[in-house]
Every structure is written in structure tokens, then in C-alpha cells.
């Protein structure tokens, strides 16, 4: 089974700060990590490989520094790593990103399953997984919490819903986005780390993936950011006093006009 896992380097949520002047994400001095949901996708891919055989290729679109994250993915069990990197990709929204990734995947060509995290913790759109499936014209299942069964031609999985789960079967190739409930990602192994240090990471540019320049980066993006701002923190609050019964009565009085 050949599995591609799409992973993204994101700023560590523990250190996220906004530049008060520009209202953009301040990346200076912030540690870049593998998107946590992608880590679960990678773990699931490695487990599938361990059960059924095959290979796991990690794919990332990002700046040259994303190489470090790809090496980490190799230390956690990925066999191959591909970095799609080009200045032309800068400013891409999810539309342009799915175009770029789909071109790269067409270049890799051979795959049975693509796994992604359900969303990245920086943009939080959850659009790249489904968008990519659409571009590749393959079945898509979101919020996968468990992969039950997998044959050469079909795969059965549980999709987490608000009120339970759906049992879904789709033909392969397919694309799944996974939730964190799917597994507990492993700690890198020593042999994995040694392999990661030595591995040659495949690097692809816009030319290598035969991309249409008009569809890349900011130029190819349909989303235009008009304004980013921090909502003003309003201090209005009221303290209720008295016995519990009195406070309930006061609260009811305040809430009833809103009902």
C-alpha cells in the first residue's frame, strides 16, 4: 500500500503572538512544529504500512526550513520525503495550495491513500484535505477516527460526528483527513533519527511540478485578506449578589429579554 501524508509546518501554538502594528502572525522567535493533526495522519500511515506493507511518503509545501519537519517525519517512520518549495508559492490560500499539492501528487503519481490532518492549527480552515481530493477527483472522508479494514481496492473507516460516528467504505485511491482520536503518535526511534539525518529529501519547484504560474501563490488565490484585527476586549460585567435563589431570580430577569 502506497500512502502519501500531507504535512505542514506551523508556529507552535504555545508561542503564538500577533504583531500589534500589522495584526499579522509574528513568526520571529516562534518555534515551528509539525501541525499536530498531521502527526496523527503520519502515525496512522506508518501503522497501516506496518500492518499491510508498502511505503509512506510525506509531502509538504513550504519554505526550505520545512525540511527539518520532513526529517522528523522520517524519524517517525516515513520512508520518503518530498518538499515542494518555490517563491512562486508564497501567499497561497487553500485554493492555490490544493492546486500546488495536486500537481506535486500527480508528479509522485503512484498512491493508494492520501492522509491529512483534519486542519492546520494556524489557518484552521480544514479546506486543504477536501480541496485536494476534489482536485484529484478521488473519494474523500473527513474526521476519520478509526480505519477498520483495508483491502487492495477499498477501505473502511469511522467518521467522527457530533452525535456518534458514520461507518464509511470507499474505493481506493482515496483521501482521508484524521482527528486526534485516531491514535497516539509515536516518539521517534533511534534508527529513525539516524535514517532521517542521512535521507535525501526530494525537492520540487513550480517548474518541476509543471504548474501553471497563474494558479500559484497570491496570484492564484481567490481569498483576499482585507483586514486582520484583534477584537477589542470589553470589560462589561455584572456581579450578582444575595442568596442563591435571589441570584437566580436576578439572572432570569437579565436573561429573559434576550430569549
Amino acid at each position, binding site marked *: 500500500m502506497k500512502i502519501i501524508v500531507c504535512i505542514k509546518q506551523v508556529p507552535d501554538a504555545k508561542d503564538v503572538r500577533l504583531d500589534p502594528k500589522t495584526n499579522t502572525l509574528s513568526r520571529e522567535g516562534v518555534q515551528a512544529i509539525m501541525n499536530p493533526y498531521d502527526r496523527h495522519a503520519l502515525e496512522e500511515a506508518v501503522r497501516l504500512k506496518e500492518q499491510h506493507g508498502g511505503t509512506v511518503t510525506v509531502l509538504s509545501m513550504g519554505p526550505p526550513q520545512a525540511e527539518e519537519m520532513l526529517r522528523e517525519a522520517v524519524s517517525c517512520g516515513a520512508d520518503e520525503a518530498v518538499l515542494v518549495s518555490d517563491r512562486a508559492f508564497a501567499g497561497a490560500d487553500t485554493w492555490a495550495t490544493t492546486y500546488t499539492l495536486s500537481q506535486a501528487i500527480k508528479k509522485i503519481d503512484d498512491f493508494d491513500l492520501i492522509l491529512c490532518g483534519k486542519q492546520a492549527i494556524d489557518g484552521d480552515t480544514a479546506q486543504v484535505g477536501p480541496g485536494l481530493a476534489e482536485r484529484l477527483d478521488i473519494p474523500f472522508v473527513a474526521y476519520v477516527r478509526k480505519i477498520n479494514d483495508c483491502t487492495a481496492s477499498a477501505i473502511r473507516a469511522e467518521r467522527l460526528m457530533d452525535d456518534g460516528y458514520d461507518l464509511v467504505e470507499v474505493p481506493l485511491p482515496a483521501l482521508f483527513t484524521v482527528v486526534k482520536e485516531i491514535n497516539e503518535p*509515536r516518539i*521517534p526511534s533511534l534508527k529513525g533519527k539516524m535514517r532521517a539525518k542521512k535521507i535525501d529529501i526530494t525537492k520540487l519547484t513550480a517548474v518541476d511540478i509543471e504548474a501553471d504560474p497563474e494558479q500559484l501563490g497570491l496570484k492564484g488565490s481567490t481569498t483576499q485578506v482585507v483586514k486582520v484585527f484583534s477584537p477589542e476586549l470589553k470589560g462589561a460585567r455584572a456581579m450578582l449578589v444575595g442568596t442563591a435563589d435571589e441570584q437566580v431570580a436576578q439572572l432570569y430577569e437579565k436573561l429573559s429579554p434576550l430569549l
Partner: protein
Amino acid sequence: MDYFLSEEQQMIVDVARQITDEMIIPQRSELDETEEYPRDILTAIAKADLYGLYIPEEYGGLGGGCFDIVLALEQFARGCTGVATAFAASALGAYPILISGSDELKQKYMPLIASGEKLAAFALTEANAGSDASGIQTTAVLDGDEWVLNGTKQWITNAGEAQIYTVIAITDKSKGPRGATMFVVEDTDPGFSYGVKEKKLGIRCSSTRELIFKDCRIPKDRVIGRIGMGFITVMKTLDQSRPGIAILGVGLGQGALDEAVNYAKQRVQFGKPIISFQAVQHILADMAIQVEAGRALVYSAAKHIDAHKNDMSKASSMCKVFATDMAMKVTVDAVQVLAGYGYMRDYPVEKMMRDAKILQIYEGTNQIQRNVIGQELNKEYTRSS
């Protein structure tokens, strides 16, 4: 301090540190309370390849030595000496095969131990054979193609959890020190069972039980090395393994120092963090000096052992005594810095203090270690005069 580790050695530290921070530290308090064997942590250690650190590549390991396993153990002990003991016990059980076993025996058992698929345990101690190993009463008698073992081993770490046991038994009482032989016993061998789990002061998540042999029959080819060479294998095993205990003292001492300094920075009395008081600073400074001195000695001893296979006793015993006496003192001091809070189970230092005590006792008491050092000095100075 920078010990100029190679890139591979730094990787060992990084992997072991991640397991310690993400798995061991969050679970240690509960493991101490429940006394449950840390199976999921040991599985993670196995998956991270660390069970094979000291085992040659031809037997499925990573081909490292004493220093490599010491680096991993230091991290584990910083988190929990009980978990670190459970991990180290498999190496102690494996060393007799590695040191004296035939190639067939190594081929059979080492890859399983290196992958962590099976755990090993070492069985020397008996009710009447502690510091005086010659008091062993377990016997092994050859009957056709099988050895028949009878007797009881006491306080065996990993008992009931391991699948591969290296056991010393008397094969010819008349030959004295040359009358003992080591064997491999498997958990499924007929006539082999375990006693109750001991209740201990510290390292409570590690398993300590009796091994009971009642006409336990094992195939003839399970002899480790030659018949009658059991004690020599035991001594070589302990020389090799003791830095692994010494480093538990260093890791534990470091963990206690970390807790004490972090607490002293936060705890405010008389309007200031207590770290600003010289009385506290001096305790912390002495702790730091001792931990670093212990680390330097254990690292040096481990490197010496990796380079001088025939001259390890003194270095091995010296680092064990120093680092484990240090751990006892440093953990007591950590409780003193945290004072009332330190005495409560809400903070990890009381557990660290309880855990430290065993380090001065097992794998040869620190008094026995001083005997070894004294005898080695006598030999050395006799040779040189």
C-alpha cells in the same frame, strides 16, 4: 556541562529525554501509588530501539556499549528510577549471555532482547546469598539431556514480567567457587514459577519477586559458557552493569536538583523567593556540584569499561558507590529545600528520596563495592611495587 557527545550519542539522549518528559514524568506518581509495571512505557522504549543500544549489530542491536546505555538510563532515572530499573534489569539479564554465552545462545536470545520483544532478568540473590554470593543453594543436576533445577531465588527484578532468565545454580558443591554454573531459563519451562510480589520502599513500579524452581527441567544447551564458570560470569556481568546503576543515581540526583531549584525560585518567604537566601543557595550549590561530579565519574568509568574489557572492576565499583551515595544525599537535601511540601506526596521529591535508597543496596551494596575497590588497590600496588 558539555561532555562533547557525538551526534549519535546526542540522538540517544534526545530520544530518551522525549520518552521521559512525555511518558515517564506524567505517569510516575500513579505508577508509584499503584505499583503497576510500566508496560506501555517499556513498549515505547522498545519501539524507539533503545533496548538494543548495547547489543552488537550481528545480534540485532545498535552495537553501542556501556556509555550508550548509560546516556539513556540517565534520562529515564531523571523521570522515575522505578521505570529505569525495570528497563535496566533486562540488560542485566542479557549480559551473562552476551559475556559468556555461545554464539548459538546469542543468536537465539539477543535479537529478542534487542528488539524489546522479550525482557530478560538476572537471578543471583537467594535468602542466604546476598553480599556473600557463595551462599547459593539453588542446584542444577544433569539428567540425560536435561538440567534439573531446584531452589528459590529472591528479590529478582523483572520476575514475572521477563521471559528470559539468567540463573546461577550450584552444579558441583565440592568445587567451591568453581562449582556454580549459569543457565538460561524461559518463563514457560516446566517446574518454574514465581513467588508473591514484594512490597517495597521505593522503585515501586518495578517488579520484585521470587523465582521458584521445583524440578524445573531445561534443555542441556541452555548452559551459559562453560560448566563451573558461573561465578566468573556473574562478576563480569556486575562489572559491566554497575555503571548502569551509578547513572540512575545521577539521573535521580538531577531530577531532585531540578525540582529543588524550580521550587526555590517560586517559593516566597520573608517577602523573597527562598533561592535568594544563602542558606538555601548553598544547599542547591552542593547538590549541583555533587550531581555534576557523579556524572563526570560515571561517564568516565563507562568509557573506560568500553575500552578496557579486562580491567573494569575498580572503575565500575567506584562510580557505583560515589553516584549512589550522592543520590541519597541529594534527594534528602531536595526534600529539605521543599520542606513541608517536599514531605507530601503531592511533590515528587519524597518519592525520589525513597527511590534513592535501593541504589546503595542492589547490584552489590556500597560496602561490598568498597571491598572490591580495596582489593583492587591492593592488587594494583602489589603489581607496581
